[in-house]
């Protein structure tokens, strides 16, 4: 099953500011471009991307808000929590979607009622709409959720896979522009065109991802959910609104994730022995590609982990790849506060100095609510402005933190 938020960012804004219900709005003001639009704005003809200037000229009635990732993450978490109450096997997907393996909790016979009830609950509790697609594989479920929007429910059973045959391959997740062109050159434009070929012939003529995709489209699952493992691990994933193609901005986003993970580790008085870094990139945006690096010694210091991870990231970075998300997580069991060693080495002393610095940084950030300190490389990603036009999350006084409950503004 694939649960997909409808016009997710714009819907989060409409959910938290009731005055904007049913009104045309767009998101992306902080970058001067429209990156997300509500259905009402889409109906007027607003396209994305579109520059702020062009939007103001052509559609002066459309409000342009700054995007607020923390808010969207809260809604995303809530969406996933609600699904997780019924299905234990879920995959994080990107910020506005969730994959769930419902085979253990329902049958093909009952799945419509199950999906309808889940959709109703999600829409009520989140104050926005989602579309649901159900199919025998992740790929089919994802294609199905896009069939009817907003608030659509499409079920493709293994017996009726032919309903997919007219779908153009360009609408299939995992098919990039180049693959699409290449296939079109051979007269293969729709799913049906691809599937008339024997699997063996596809294997002979095309690469492995396409072979796997063809299996998926025939209803044989090749891709498995990446479920979260172990309660002990700490991780952070950041999806981007617009794909990132340059190394420096990617590293910036990445470094924020490292900061977040290390902060969580320090809060638990834990250190990690190894870190897994990873990314999701177009066209196969629901596969997390990862590498694991061993730390020379258990660590929770962002500087140490960042330098290890940066080398690794540099090694896997490919020019002209469109990156969709970056991931950092601990690998293996965590080491909890070790006892003082009897004999300390030079490295131990250096480590101790870093620990002291981190303790100071953490206490500045958490206790006094002082300036939000971040590594210099994290600074560029700070683009949540206070007066973006949306209903901001509520600030906790004397702190740079915001409350983790969406704020709906004031009411009379």
């Amino acid at each position: 099953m694939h649960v997909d938020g409808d016009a997710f960012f714009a819907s989060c804004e409409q959910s938290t500011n009731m005055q904007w219900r049913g009104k045309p709005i767009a998101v992306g003001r902080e970058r001067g471009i429209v990156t997300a639009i509500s259905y009402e704005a889409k109906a007027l003809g607003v396209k994305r991307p579109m520059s702020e200037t062009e939007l103001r000229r052509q559609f002066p009635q459309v409000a342009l808000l700054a995007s607020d990732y923390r808010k969207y993450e809260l809604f995303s978490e809530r969406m996933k929590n609600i699904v997780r109450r019924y299905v234990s096997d879920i995959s994080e997907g990107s910020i506005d979607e969730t994959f769930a393996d419902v085979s253990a909790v329902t049958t093909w016979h009952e799945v419509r009622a199950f999906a309808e009830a889940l959709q109703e609950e999600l829409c009520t509790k989140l104050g926005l709409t989602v579309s649901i697609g159900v199919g025998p594989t992740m790929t089919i479920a994802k294609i199905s959720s896009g069939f009817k929007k907003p608030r659509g429910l499409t079920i493709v059973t293994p017996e009726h896979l032919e309903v997919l045959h007219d779908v153009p391959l360009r609408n299939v997740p995992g098919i990039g522009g180049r693959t699409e062109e290449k296939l079109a050159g051979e007269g293969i434009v729709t799913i049906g065109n691809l599937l008339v070929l024997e699997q063996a012939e596809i294997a002979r003529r095309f690469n492995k991802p396409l072979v796997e995709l063809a299996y998926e489209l025939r209803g044989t699952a090749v891709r498995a959910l990446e479920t979260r493992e172990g309660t002990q691990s700490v991780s952070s994933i950041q999806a981007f609104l617009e794909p990132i193609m340059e190394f420096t901005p990617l590293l910036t986003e990445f470094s924020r994730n490292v900061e977040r993970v290390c902060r969580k580790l320090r809060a638990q008085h834990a250190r990690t022995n190894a870190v897994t870094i990873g990314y999701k990139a177009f066209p196969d945006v629901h596969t997390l590609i990862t590498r694991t690096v061993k730390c020379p010694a258990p660590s929770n210091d962002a500087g140490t982990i960042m330098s290890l991870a940066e080398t690794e990231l540099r090694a896997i970075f490919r020019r002209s790849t469109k990156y969709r998300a970056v991931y950092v997580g601990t690998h293996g069991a965590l080491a909890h506060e070790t006892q003082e060693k009897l004999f300390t080495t030079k490295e131990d002393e250096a480590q101790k100095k870093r620990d002291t610095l981190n303790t100071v940084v953490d206490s500045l950030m958490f206790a006094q609510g002082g300036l939000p300190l971040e590594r210099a490389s994290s600074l560029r990603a700070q683009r949540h402005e206070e007066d973006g036009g949306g209903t901001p999350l509520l600030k906790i006084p004397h702190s740079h933190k915001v409350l983790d409950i969406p704020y709906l503004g004031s009411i009379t």
Partner: protein
Amino acid sequence: MAGFGSPIDDGRDVGSLEAWLLADPDATYLISMDGDALLDAQIAPGDFLLTQRTRTVRAGDIVVAEIDGDYVVRFLRKNGRGEQYLEAANDAYPKLVPQESLNIEGKVIACIRKYGSE
């Protein structure tokens, strides 16, 4: 699909204030009271209201609702014919009877008033 245990039922015999306040944390939102329409119900301007988005609201609940295009927080009432209307807790405010639409956004489940600026 209802009937799942609340997050309070995690097998431990000590629950947090947060778990008690937020019976359904994934459906609970914060809204702030502007104005004195609910003053007689001890809800003052500046108070924070925890609002749960739910389908199950009853007459007598304090609700956040859209009535004929305006959003307000009021008591939900029913007249003798079973028709819903909204009522303030302050004589200075009129009863609100929907002419075209009445949509319930959520139910107010708690009122938070923080003293000082801490």
